């Protein structure tokens, strides 16, 4: 019963996540950028732009220039998030990939780093008057959601130990469209429930920044407007 309810939720959430994000990416890719608007100084070559976007995505370069505290908390949170996600791959693969084995020990403790980063961001959101002013309820809820996922996840491991072998069998089954039994462990159910909520809100929330950052014209355009004409299809129609 429990296994079936969560299976349905997982399938629905996965569909919403995939369709929602793919739809948004298609819109971002299709809508033209009518003018060259890179924030200069900007790279003059494609390769340079790839490097620029790489530095933004991996190091949060502009954020570093902007505000060291937000950078510190934000960067720690995101990098820890990736480690945690990588570690979770072990529940979806059999045999477990070699590199996942390697990050495993780091991934376990990255969970705490992630919580610390999120706590720092939340503290700023509450304590810094300017950031409090620009926050909506959804901004606080997003942090609550992620902290809830992180905290419940850590509890399944360090407090109320979950039968992780059974969870893995359940997940591997779901991937092959076979619905098995899920341990009726409250912390685990909360953890998985919150992940499902995250998957559903992803394509309708500010989490779109993850795909969106690659489409920001001020960061992804080559600074060569004098050399290359850049005419949007709708603007080309004016020319004749």
């Amino acid at each position: 019963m429990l296994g079936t309810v969560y299976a349905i939720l997982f399938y629905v959430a996965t569909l919403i996540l995939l369709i929602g994000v793919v739809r948004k990416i298609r819109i971002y890719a299709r809508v033209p950028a009518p003018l060259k608007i890179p924030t200069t100084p900007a790279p003059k070559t494609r390769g340079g732009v790839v490097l620029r976007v790489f530095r933004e995505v991996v190091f949060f370069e502009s954020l570093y220039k902007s505000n060291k505290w937000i950078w510190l908390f934000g960067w720690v949170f995101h990098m820890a998030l990736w480690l945690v996600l990588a570690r979770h791959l072990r529940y979806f693969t059999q045999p477990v990939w070699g590199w996942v084995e390697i990050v495993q020990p780091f991934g376990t403790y990255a969970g705490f780093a992630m919580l610390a980063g999120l706590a720092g961001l939340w503290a700023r959101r509450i304590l810094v008057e300017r950031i409090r002013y620009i926050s909506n309820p959804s901004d606080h809820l997003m942090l609550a959601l992620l902290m809830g996922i992180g905290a419940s996840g850590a509890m399944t491991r360090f407090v109320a130990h979950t039968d992780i072998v059974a969870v893995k069998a359940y997940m591997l089954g779901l991937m092959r469209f076979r619905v098995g039994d899920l341990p009726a462990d409250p912390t685990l159910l909360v953890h998985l429930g919150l992940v499902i909520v995250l998957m559903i809100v992803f394509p309708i929330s500010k989490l779109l920044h993850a795909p969106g950052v690659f489409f920001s014209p001020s960061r992804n355009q080559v600074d060569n407007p004098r050399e290359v004409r850049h005419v949007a299809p709708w603007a080309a129609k004016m020319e004749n």
Partner: protein
Amino acid sequence: MADGDTQVPELAFPLDIPCLKRGAMEGTKPFVAQAEHQAKLGFPGALVPDWKDKALAKMQELAEKNRAFQVYLDICVKCGACTDKCHYFLGTGDPKNMPVARQDLLRSVYRRYFTFAGKHFPWLVGARDLTEDVLNEWYSYYHQCSECRRCSVFCPYGIDTAEITMAAREILDSVGVGQKYSNEIIGKVKDIGNNLGLNPKALRATLEDLEEDIEDDTGVSVRLPLDEKGADILLVTPSADFFAEPHIEGLIGYAKVFHEAGVSWTLSSYASEAANFGLFIGSYENMREISLRIRKAAQDLGVKRIIFGECGHAWRVAYSFLNTLAGPWDFLDQSYPVPQHILEFTWDEIQKGTLNLDPSRNDHIRLTYHDSCNVARASGMGDYPGGQFEIPRNVIRAVCNNFFDMEPDTIREATLCCGGGGGLLTDDLMDLRIKGSAPRMKALQNVTEEHGVTHMAAICAICKTQFGKVMPKYGYEMDAILSVHQLVSNAIILTGQDGEDEDEAEDA
């Protein structure tokens, strides 16, 4: 608005973050355009009856035509990194002048009508209905943004509030609520060819007067040609260069450089304006129409090259957009960039050694340099990233012995706006202009204290005009603002000019 009542902000240091003063700038708004101004640009003359539907339709159209609009409205995470980056926030403390809060004025409406979360859970994501109050709020705060892009530099996704401001102004124009200052000026360019409404006869007379002045000054005859067919170079310069100080000294500088370089050049009475206020109101169509005047002038005069004079936003439109809006430029000489900046030209000539320069003629000046936003963050110079910072400084160092930069976090890509850009250089916004210039002025005061700086140079007509007005409020003479080519003009010794006998080069 009487600027007498403006409280000149006292900042402890240039980037001093104020406490929030809610509603501090609420009443501030520029004069609204009249029907006649609107008509010339193809906009309705007054608020249309079905304005709400029209505005939402325009918003939808922008989301489909402009990737920046769509992506920027979606992806802001409200991290707050941009909140202390806007000079208008630093100068006024009004939280709606924080870049993300400025975006939110429009984002809240976009969310309400175009996103799932905003349609069904408006209270959760700060979505709100479009009402007449919202429209008024847009008119006020989207005319408190100079489209300077400082926020874009510091946002982790490069979200550029200037793009949102332009979109908002476009929406406002489309429902009949335009800004008088910008729209009236665009109309003048369409009618007469320049922002000032200076007709060809008056322009010719002005140029002849200038030729006489130069000859009186130097004993050398230097020409300022107008509408000369077959000249090699078309110079397009902001019309302020024809009549106001210190702009006009810059124009004299260009003429001297061309003279010494031995090139043939001309101005055009048809395209007698580098400025393109179509940018400020976010109107691709108007920006294109104004740009096409330059194309026509270049073709009619049969020139081989186009060079732009000192103007910030004009250089953005020229460098970043001209090829797109009015190209291809295949009929021009391809061995030079199209278009070129006058500083690129002058720096080339300095390197070639064609100019006889005596920097000691500027020894009465202790100088700093203001990077103009649109040059710094929206365009380039030379063939490497950052040329727009180096080339002006290279030229300055070649003509002036006492040069001192302001603090690093207030120059180059982090430069602070003069406070008057983006269509705000109008007397009805004087209070905002004085407050918005406070961070820049504080940085200037700091180099004055540290290095005894007396003058500041700029390469933007708007910056020069704005500084001429606001510097007196901060304890400087109004002529403490200089054109870069004015310094060149001071230092240059023309062939045949008796360098030693000249009296002290005048300082403005």
